[in-house]
């Protein structure tokens, strides 16, 4: 083997390491170009991976931004416990902004109807957090493989004063050069793991031995079948509805959002290797377990235009 070919093999980067390098670069770019960024932290696996990437970008120093949790009040108790434990262990600042506070002030409303949801109520809560803390850039863990509208979104995604996304008027984004210049009132959402797939996230968690909430692993849980999905039941308002029968099933969650909108899947996968195997064989997409996307074909596009992540 020639010397050059030899060194090429020696310095080879796997796809995960290439994606990691890209994400670190994006995070540092935001830290350098903005005054007041924050990292959106939900307690879900994608935001946990983001925290790991921030450690890679900034350790041994502290993060140059706080974590921000938009607390819907509909979280899984396990996810909240995990959040607090993680924040404690990394020693970073966490800001919690509650949907309930906005509802109490009459600035947000829960979607009425048979399936109450606080999905939309997150939008005014997020915008209120941006105004309160004067954030000019927010990191999100969204990925382009999740959904068709996201496939076209930039890594630096601009929002106007109302937090709206204009899909037809996006800035060109070339090479690894990011233009973060914005006017007062505008802010951006930044997606460092845009180019990761669900599979990449799981592999990275496995490779880096990242701790995640037990919800992602197979466990016994009380659920009801609703509209063909396994919906977790808990204390009010997440109890069973009239005519629904509560059953115990061995399930896990592929995605962890609100209890009111995250369905479980039947699964015996109890460790990361089994989860990776299951994701590889899966025949339904991850967002298929999110009831909020089911309403219309362009559901996500509409919500993003309103200021959703």
């Amino acid at each position, binding site marked *: 083997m020639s010397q*050059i070919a030899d*060194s*090429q*093999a020696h*310095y*080879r*980067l*796997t*796809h*995960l*390491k290439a*994606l990691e*390098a890209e994400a*670190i*670069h994006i995070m*540092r*770019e935001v*830290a*350098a170009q903005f005054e007041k960024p924050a990292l959106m932290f939900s307690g879900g696996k994608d935001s946990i991976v983001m925290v790991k990437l921030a450690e*890679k*970008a*900034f*350790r*041994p*120093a*502290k993060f140059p931004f706080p974590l921000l949790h938009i607390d819907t009040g509909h979280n899984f108790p396990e996810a909240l416990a995990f959040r607090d434990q993680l924040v404690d262990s990394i020693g970073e600042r966490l800001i919690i902004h509650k949907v309930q506070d906005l509802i109490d002030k009459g600035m947000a409303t829960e979607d009425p109807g048979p399936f109450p949801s606080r999905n939309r109520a997150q939008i005014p809560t997020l915008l209120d957090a941006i105004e309160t803390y004067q954030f000019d850039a927010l990191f999100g863990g969204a990925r*382009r493989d999740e959904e*068709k*509208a996201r*496939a076209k979104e930039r890594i630096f995604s601009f929002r106007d004063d109302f937090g709206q996304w204009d*899909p*037809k008027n*996006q800035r*060109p*984004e*070339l*090479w*690894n050069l990011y*233009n973060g*210049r*914005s006017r007062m009132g505008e802010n951006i959402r930044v997606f460092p793991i*845009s*180019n990761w*797939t669900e*599979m*990449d996230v799981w592999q990275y968690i*496995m*490779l880096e031995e990242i701790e995640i909430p037990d919800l992602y692993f197979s466990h016994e849980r009380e659920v009801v079948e609703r509209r063909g999905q396994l919906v977790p039941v808990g204390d009010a308002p997440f109890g069973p509805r009239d005519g629904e029968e509560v059953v115990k099933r061995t399930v896990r969650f592929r995605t962890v959002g609100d209890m009111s909108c995250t369905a479980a899947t039947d699964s015996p996968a109890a460790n990361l*290797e089994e989860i*990776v*195997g299951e994701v*590889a064989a*899966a*025949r*339904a*997409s991850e967002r*298929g377990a999110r009831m909020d996307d089911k309403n219309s*074909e*362009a559901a996500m*596009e509409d919500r993003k235009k309103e200021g959703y992540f």
Partner: protein
Amino acid sequence: MDFSTDAYLDMDLLRFLTCGSVDDGKSTLIGRLLYDSKSIFEDQLEAAETASLSRGDQRMDLALLTDGLRAEREQGITIDVAYRYFATPKRKFIIADCPGHVQYTRNMVTGASTANLALILIDARHGVIEQTRRHSFITSLLRIPHLVVCVNKMDLADWSQETYDKIREDFEEFAARFEITDITFIPMSALTGDNVVNRSENMDWYQGPSLLHHLENVHIAGDRDMIDPRFPVQWVVRPQGDEHHDYRGYGGQVASGVFQVGDEVVALPSGMESKIKSIDIGGASQQFASPPQSVSIQLENDIDISRGDMLCRPNNQPTSGQDIDAMVVWMADTPMQVGKKYTIRHTSNEARCIVKNLNYRLDIETLHRVEEAEDLKLNEIGRISIRTTKPLFYDPYRQCRVTGSFIIVDEQTNNTVGAAMIIGETN
């Protein structure tokens, strides 16, 4: 396709670009790649089927798997660059799916900027057309190292070798004018799947690989420059507090070349020299850093380095200068004006510049140089001379895509209005 867990952790990444219009069957080809490599989920398939039926289509339109925005679905066109993902046990692929028409040149350039390989689609019934030439030119302008010419719709051309050979000859004839080093031709039908993932049984005269086989095996390790070390400093990692009192790391992404602990380096613009004391990622140290790794580098001596500076080797430095010639693709509705001031972003550096001269506009249909051109309009390409407010540390784009590229930002609107590839110093 079967993966073992180990295989997942040992895959390469290949970013490629697809260019073509709906008529070429580009969306169908991508749909086919995703579908045959089992990268489409059932609920996504159902959504596309439902949408096909509600439009009154006869069969499921594979293109619906990829057209994302509502306006695109309604009009049956692709407006913006969309990114798609799939993987085989060998590689993970990122597709930058770009619209083909001339009014979307800027979108194609955007997708091309990060691609290592381009797929160009040719309708076997129509052969090489103006659009083929334009796409090939942009591929060479952006210096995408590998090109695959997909001669598509062979099912509608009687699977004819003669047709294929003619197209291949025509393409090679005009492509000789471009600097494209690696060109592969594949006859196929995205609609029927021939030679996309599986080898065709209808074209036994073709002995080459299927498209997916080629994508999995094309040699990409040599695309990275391991010779010329360039490290633009992006962020200084400086912990507050006593525990890491002495730590001062220069964070950045290796643009090219290899840096090793113990290497002598020089910092630009100061010219101060030092040695690499350590290299780490988030505190985990390693002996060397290669592109495109994002690392933190500590030096033996405490010299003043900040964002926008560059580390390189004393005996291998980039050009440093303020008068620069570049090819620029204009991306805004408001034309580029000679004499106007813009902001530019180059590596981790930001500077202001004045456009001193438009040497010529390049007609992307004929490749003629229009020297009397006075401005550059949306989607137009030209050679410009700029003068910057401070020196940039750059290499010609043909040598390094990272240190050889910059974007132009309009100071009033803050929009990214131009993409530039450096030729070299202004004569």
